[in-house]
């Protein structure tokens, strides 16, 4: 895999792992009987995401990684809809779009 692609792809992978980590944390609130399992899985995924992100930063600048990393908001919205059955409405999607644009502008020249 070319180094130029490795960094951005790793950041995208981080966003996906972060999304699943957040779903586990939410699951811990929805299923008290398996609370510790979901929190443990969420923390493990969080640690994996932090490790991947550290590796990714060896290939890509922070100013590039932040906007790509904000893809996590999209992942969370999709997973919330598909796995948690949350009502991700058009207004919420629009809000997520504004947030991603804002984060990209804020971090774009970091």
């Amino acid at each position: 895999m070319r180094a130029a692609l490795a960094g951005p792809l790793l950041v995208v992978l981080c966003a996906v792992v972060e999304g699943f980590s957040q779903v586990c944390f939410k699951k811990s609130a929805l299923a008290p009987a398996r609370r510790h399992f979901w929190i443990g899985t969420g923390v493990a995924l969080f640690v994996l995401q932090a490790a991947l992100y550290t590796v990714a930063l060896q290939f890509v600048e922070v100013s590039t990684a932040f906007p790509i990393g904000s893809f996590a908001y999209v992942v969370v919205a999709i997973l919330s809809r598909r796995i948690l059955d949350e009502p991700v409405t058009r207004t919420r999607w629009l809000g997520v779009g504004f947030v991603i644009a804002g984060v990209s502008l804020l971090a774009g020249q970091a």
Partner: protein
Amino acid sequence: MKRGLPAWLTARLALAIALDSAVQLLWKLAALQLPGSLSPSALAAAALHQPLFLLLGALFVWQLANWLRVLEASDLSYSQPITSLSFVSVFALSVLFLGERVDAAKIFGIAFVFAGVWLIGRTPHDRRAGAAGTP
């Protein structure tokens, strides 16, 4: 924020944003104090002896405990994007204390984040509560 959001939940979300901002800034400071060109294992060992990393660990635990309380009373797709306000607070702190420059793109960035959070705040915060909101 949408009317009807409990005060304690608003406070927890504000705490989540504050803790996220503190973690981001501390992480930067802590990383700067580590020696460069070390292997990952040597880097991890060096981090364990760095007081700032111990403080970071404590903040992570506090952040997780607070976040789990937030998720007990709100949708993940509602609360998670709201924490993006930490990007604004980190930027504001960087301008105040690190001399980061402000330009038009960053002003627009802040405006977009606020607009996004405002839009998300207009939707029901918890589907189980059955609260009315903008579709």
